[in-house]
Structures are given as C-alpha cells and as structure tokens.
C-alpha cells in the first residue's frame, strides 16, 4: 500500500454499499451511503493489491498457530442462571427474551 491515496477504483458503487448495509443489518442514511461509497472504494482500491502476489500454489492460512484436535471432554460445566442469562436483555417475558415480530423464515 503506498502512502498516496489511490484514485477511485470504481470497485464499489453506492447501490452496492446499500446492498452491503442491508446484508449487514445497518440502516444507513443517504448521506452515509455517499460517504461510505467513496471511502470503501478507496480502501478496496488499496487492499486489492493482495491480488498482485502470485500465490496460486500457496496454501491459505486460516489459523496463525497450527493446532489441531483441541477438544473438551463431554462433561457438564455450571452455566448461567436464568436471571443471569436474561440480565442484559432489553425485554423479557416468562423467562424468555422478548423480541419484536420476526418477518423472515427460519433457515
């Protein structure tokens, strides 16, 4: 990444930002859409530099320290009481978290 701000890459449009905001459940304002579209475009232009590296035969790293088979025994551990579980809830009813009506389908 150079120190100079790259020119707009055209990598991302305002509509795409609106789509991302929907996916990410962010009710962004129209003004924000303009600002974010510009900023994300610049950032994406810069980070796209990863594509310059010839890495076809390079394995990806998902975990910095290569561990495997880290398990716990199937033994019960004390958890939270119902009161503790619900302690931070914005709304509670009958020992459950109360939430507004759900529009989408279960997956």
């Amino acid at each position, binding site marked *: *990444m150079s*120190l100079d*701000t790259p020119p707009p890459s055209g990598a*991302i449009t305002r509509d*795409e*930002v609106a789509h*991302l*905001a*929907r*996916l*990410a*459940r*962010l*009710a*962004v*304002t129209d003004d*924000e859409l303009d*600002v*974010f579209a510009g*900023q*994300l475009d*610049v*950032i*994406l232009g*810069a*980070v*796209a*530099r*990863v*594509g*310059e*590296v010839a*890495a076809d035969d*390079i*394995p*990806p*790293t*998902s*975990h*910095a*320290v290569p*561990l495997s088979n*880290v398990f*716990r025994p199937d033994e019960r551990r004390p958890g*939270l009481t119902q009161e*503790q*579980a619900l*302690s*931070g*809830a*914005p*709304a509670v009813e009958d020992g459950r*978290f109360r*939430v*507004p*009506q*759900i*529009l*989408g389908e279960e997956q």
Partner: protein
Amino acid sequence: MSTELIRLTAAELAVKIHSREVSAVEVTRAHLDRIAAVDGQVNAFLHVAREAALANAALVDESIAAGTAPASPLAGVPLALKDVFTTMDMPTTCGSRILEGWRPPYDATVTTRLRAAGITILGKTNMDEFAMGSSTEYSAYGPTRNPWDTSRIPGGSGGGSAAALAAFEAPLAIGTDTGGSIRQPAAMTGTVGVKPTYGGVSRYGLVACASSLDQCGPCARTVLDAALLHEVIAGPDPLDSTSIDAPVPAVLEAVRRGADGDLRGLRVGVVRELGGEGYQAGVQSNFEAALRQLEKLGAEVVEVSAPHFQYGLPAYYLILPSEVSSNLARFDAMRYGLRVENGTSAEEVMAATREAGFGPEAKRRIMLGTYALSSGYYDAYYGQAQKVRTLISRDFATAFAQADVLVSPTAPTTAFPIGEKVDDPLAMYLNDLATIPTNLAGTAAMSVPSGLAAEDGLPTGLQIMAPALGEAVMYRVAAAYEAARDAEGGGALIHRVPPMEVSA
C-alpha cells in the same frame, strides 16, 4: 507521599506493599486520587471502580498482615483494564454505544487471573470502538488524550491503557493487539507494550475484534513490570481452543538476564522493508540510535528482507474486516445491549439499533468485511489475503533463520494531532504498517521506548519481534536495550512526560 507512589514501578510498589512499608490501600488510593485529578484531561478511563479497588487492596493488606504469602509478585498493585474484557462487577462497553452499561454475567479468563493474583483493578480504559482504530478517537465516549501533549492522540486502539500509564494513573495495564493496538500506543506514549504469541494468553472473555489476530498482552512503564504481568496472565486455558498448551516462556528470568547488558552472540535482524520512505525523520533516527545501542551491547546487527511485508497491510484490511463483520453480528438488540425501538419487526429493530449503536469505523469495516466474504469476491479478497498471510509467515521463518530477533520502528510517526486522520481511514490504517505482519503470522513482538523525536519532542518506540513462543529472547533484548537507553538518556524516558495540571 502519594505523588511518589504513583511514580514508582509495579515491581517497586509490590516490594513496598509486601514488606508492609506501604499498604495496598494507600497505593490504590494514591492512584484513584491521581485519576480523579487528571483523567478529566486524559479521558483514559471509561469506568473507575473505586470501591471494588479499595476493597481488593484491603483484602491484600489483611492477607499480608496475617502472614500469608502474597497471591503473586504483583498482589496489591493497581492495574487499568482495557474495556474489552468482561468483568462481572464493572460495565464492559468496548468503547461502543451499542454496549453502553452492559454488565457481563461472567469474567474473562484474564480478569479471573488478575483477581486471583491479587492485582487491584482500578477500572476500565478507553479504546477505539471494538478495538478498531489507531488513535482512540473512534471511541463512542470521546477521545483519549496523550499525556505528552493533550492535543494529540495516544495511539490506538488501546490509547486508554497506554495513556493511563503515561499519566501515572496506573503502573500496569492490559491491552489487546490485533494489528498493533498494544505496541503502537506504547510507542506513542513512551511506555512498554507486549503482544505475546497468538495463543499465549487466553482470549476467553475478550470481546473479539478479529479472532485470528487478537491477542491480549501486558502494558507497563518498564520491561520488568511487563514481564511480571505477562507471567500472571499467560498460559493455557481450556476455555480457549486457540490457547497454546505449553509452558509460559520464562520472561522474568529473561529480563533479569537482559539487565546484565550483555547481548553478545545474539543476532538482531533489521527488516529492510520496515523503514525508510514514509517513516518520520525523528522516528528513523531514533531507530538508528537504537541499533547502535544494541551493537554496543554486543549484538550483531544484520539486515534481513521480508519481501511480502508490503502486502501485510492490504491482507490485514481484508482479513480483519471479514472477521469483524461476523464477530459484530451478535450485537443485534435481541439479548443484550442497546435496542432502538424504531420499526415493528425484529429485522427493522436490528438494523436501526446497529445503525445507531456503531460508529463510522465499525460500520466501514463491517461493510468492507461483508463485501470481502461475498461469494463473488471471496477468492480474490479473503482467500488471496489468507495466502499472503502464509507468505508473510514464511518471510518471518526465513528472517528468524538469520536473526534471533527482528527490529523496526514500532510506528512510522509520532503521535499526531487529534482530528488529523479521523476522516481519512486509509491514512489512519498506515499507522499499523510495521506492527501488522506480526499479527498475521501469530508471532510475538513488543515496543520499548526509544527516545523522543528531535523534531517534535514526542516519544518513539523500538519494535522487537520474536518467533512464536520466543518471548524470552525478546524480553531479554528489550531489558538490555531499556537499561542502556535509560543510562545514556539520563533516566527513564517516562519521567520526561510534562507535568499535568492537577485539578483539586
């Protein structure tokens, strides 16, 4: 008396408390008083746990009076905890509006270990929202100011912890480092900050920024204090699958050895790609002075190359936002935290709450990560970034074959004025140029004060990098360098922080 107490190191305080020369309560009170006097200017703390802190100190005093051995070498010493660790008796906000006032029903492993060690938690420190930022300006609760110059940033994301040390509000602090959030603030405040090997300290109860990069570590004013704290918090934890099941590197012993000032037989590698263009003159010249110090101590300085480090920043700014977009999804107004009742459906309330609860940098990174993980872009962005990660690890491996530790300036510049980069994300990201490769590789690194930049009189830091679980050699070099620099500079750098106006 209390003015003196706050200027002591953690090690010195511990000796006095354990020998009953002063009480832990007095020490705690001195720091609480200091916080009350100066934090209005610094804004290092989001929450001060006055009663709990005094109660813990009293328990330590009682226990020592009863002849019981201290719970740890740091029992009774006060500490500032970054507000990203869960604490049952204090709110945990992560610097975000979305978690304002949230009281977790459980303690982080780090919190538990601090408590078990008898360390007094003074309160929770300010940070960039969810640890995303390099200046602590992205906190929902106002920026933290650098005690060296309160018109400037203290670095970030752990600016609160670093500023608390530099303002003598606490002798110890805990930070987290995802791309430099411990080391860069340490450099900018003239303090010591350590990012241990990934998996060296449990992340259980650390509210995640980027899970594959986050690591907790000690912050202090001296290398010895950092080592003492390191030994308290490090070690395997069955609640964190990524914690390394191996003994904690003997960092305290390494510091004692380093204090001998003999680094003969040690090779110090200068990473060619981390320096030069883009680095402030005073930063660069202090770095060169540090190299001369290391040579004087007997180390052999060699140049190494890490050709892929230049891709570290772009790779980081793909991997981090991707993980962030997933980690921050749980803040949805359903179970805890803010709920903005704007709309009739769960979906609308979620979107309205997240819009109101997250600041601009969090939103930017969430959207950036959502983009990078999208099916059409995954290979070009996230997948490719993971390959770059492999290449950076290989660069490290090659370099560590030629040198025991690697060094670079910690940050390219000294502390910049508040507001200067807050609306220019890319400029802000460049702060982490030198610190990011370590996070991508999961190796260890730390920052030690390396003097004041000639042009602005602000502190700079020397970054010392070590292989995974190579903390001992890193601390040894740091301790040796610290002693030599302090001797040459006529005392510890931290005592040159300008005095702060003390409010009554």
